[in-house]
């Protein structure tokens, strides 16, 4: 559905009062933080790599390619991640899938981890939850070529991280969300469970 004019909410900058427009309150507020640090003796340095950092739950680290229940790559090579990627670091070669229940799969899937800016747009764009960012951040390589992660490497990251208590944060401990389930063709005579009914918008007057 196209965005209608009435659905757009325009916001404008709040007006500054005289006192605010001198910027003195803002400067005082900033200096409070600075001065506060002078008297704060807490150690914030972490002893990495001996001590692993406690990363926030939504940290975006290296990518992984998820597997489906049968261990196959979940990706359907729709190129949405490559399209969404602002750094153009995803290279996919699509081909006809060797499996009956799928049309298309990635024959080659390469992410240039050096070009990547870890924004997570690929993960957002993926229609089947096949690509995800893990909390692994300490990746390294001797050459640039090594940092081109191919399909096997990305799948192996899935194997390594899927059992971690922390990963995957976005797919609830290895159980992938409902959006990721591939709809299987129903055998004749069998009735599938009803899909959740989406409530109709109140302003829909066509029926």
């Amino acid at each position, binding site marked *: *559905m*196209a965005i209608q004019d009435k659905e757009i909410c325009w916001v404008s900058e709040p007006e500054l009062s005289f006192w605010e427009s001198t910027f003195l309150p803002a400067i005082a507020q900033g200096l409070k933080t600075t001065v506060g640090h002078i008297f704060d003796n807490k150690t914030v340095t972490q002893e990495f790599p001996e001590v692993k950092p406690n990363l926030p739950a939504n940290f975006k680290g290296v990518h992984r390619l998820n597997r489906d229940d049968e261990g196959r790559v979940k990706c*359907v*090579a*729709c*190129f*949405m991640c490559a*399209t969404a990627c602002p750094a153009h670091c995803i290279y996919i070669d*699509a*081909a*006809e899938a060797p499996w009956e229940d799928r*049309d*298309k799969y990635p024959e080659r899937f390469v992410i240039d981890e050096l070009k990547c800016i870890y924004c997570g747009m690929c993960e957002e764009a993926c*229609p*089947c939850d096949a690509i995800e960012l893990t909390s692994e951040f300490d990746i390294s390589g001797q050459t640039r070529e090594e940092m081109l992660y191919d399909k096997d490497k990305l799948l192996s990251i899935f194997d390594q991280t899927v059992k971690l208590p922390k990963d995957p944060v976005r797919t609830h401990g290895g159980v992938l969300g409902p959006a990721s389930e591939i709809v299987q*063709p*129903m055998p004749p005579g069998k*009735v*599938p469970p*009803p*899909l959740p*009914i*989406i409530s*109709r918008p109140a302003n*829909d*007057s*066509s*029926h």
Partner: protein
Amino acid sequence: MPTVIVNGREIEIGADERLNCIQAAQRADVEIPHYCWHKDLSVVASCRMCLVEVGERKPDGTIAMVPKLVPGCQTPVKAETVIVSNSPAVLAAQKATLEYLLLNHPLDCPVCDQAGECFLQDYSYKYGRGYSRLQEPKLLKPDKDHIGDQITLFTDRCVMCTRCVRFTREISGTGELQVIERGSHAEIDIFPGEPCNNKLAGNVVDICPVGALCSKDFLYEQRVWWLESTSSVCPNCSTGCSIRVDQNKDVVYRFKPRHNPLAQGEFMCDEGRFGYKYINSPDRLTQPLVRLEGDQQPTDWETILPGVRAAIEGAITAKPQAVAAVLSPWMTVEEAYLLAGYLKNLSKEIRLYLGPVRVVGDDDCYPKDVHGNAVAPTRFTIRAEKCPNRQGVEAIIRHFQGSTLSMDDFWKAVSAGQIDAAYLVGGDPHEPWLTDEQGALLDTLKLTIVQDILPSAASRRAHYVLPGGSFAERDGTFVNHAGLAQPIKRAIHSPEEARPDNRILWELAGRRGLFNAGRLRNEIAEHISALQALTHPLGEFGVMLDTPGKPTNASVVANAATSP
């Protein structure tokens, strides 16, 4: 002039025009969504997407509306017809129709090749509901890979518009496709063992408004939003179909026909459609070569062009009447003009030959009857002459020389020992343009310069090899069988060191600045009376050389409006 009122806006149509509501609305810049209706096919009014309210304005100014919605494709307009396509009733009907069409349509847009140029997507976005109320499982029908050698059918994506069926019945006349089963079980299929392999089969993929019929050649190659299109002309026969060259990162992925009422109409043949592979060929000549002590060695353009110029001038000083140039019918008018002008400027006695014009069989006319014989009226013709610009190059040669000489004349002259130096422009990328025996004759020449895109018996023997560009890498003009001059435009960069022929010849001729097809066209039109129509802007459709001033029929232009 009759007046039609579309959504309250009055537009005038031609007195003798026969338009339906969709076409009349297009004139008023109003889109009436439609699937099954296609300008060149019969009307079935089966998709119900174009339902509109229609009425008539009476002489006293009152408006009487038909008390129900009617299909716009099937309803002709006349003077004082009123069309309403934005009333609540029409919008509700559009929503309902789309919901119905989407009942069994799989939501596999991410893996569907049509996504991005799919009218089910576009119309759902513009006119649809945005969610589905279906709770039952969708009907899944098996894909049909056996529909044709070049086409495949994703059965469950089909919306039963039957455009493909009507195309094979009305345009190609071959009638391979049909609807089997009825109701919600209806499917497109072929007769067992009779795949849809006619020479126009690729068009069913273009006219399919959804992703049901897909081209096997293009399947999963690219997402369409990455393709950049350039308007051009198919070079694979002298019909000169208007096409779009779709490329991404200098790789050509497909040709699509472009509407041109002056050239071919709406469609193109498979020979042309799939005849692009050579552009991406790894065999392409990519490096200028010069023969030094018997061996061809790579060199650069800064070295080879002065070398070629000096060699030609040397040959002319020695014996001008023994210098020959072969101008390929694959060259553009501009390139032929540059080369012919450059050589004739050096010496009037140089002989210009028209390169090999490949003719295969007879013109292939469609539709066909069951016996494969063409039936009048002809809707599409695949020409026997498999080169894009014989007429244009001939006009150039005739201007400089009075008459054209054929390739046979050239080989006769070579075997008679009358020629010492030859500038050969190849061209035909599909078939070798000279035999090995003819190639061997070139050994007798003192100077052979070959400008081509693919290696041949000539390029292997040449003293100088100039790697040129395919038609997709060049700007210029092609003149088709009927004398229609159409512009071709550069879509991609040439591989490695290869350069578009126009640039090679521009620099060889020692001209200053950069090649500009439009400016050179004006110069040609000034000098050559046969081509003076080229002063007219070629526009989207091109210009007929004999009747250039004739305005393109207004209805023709209006009907060119974007349509699925």
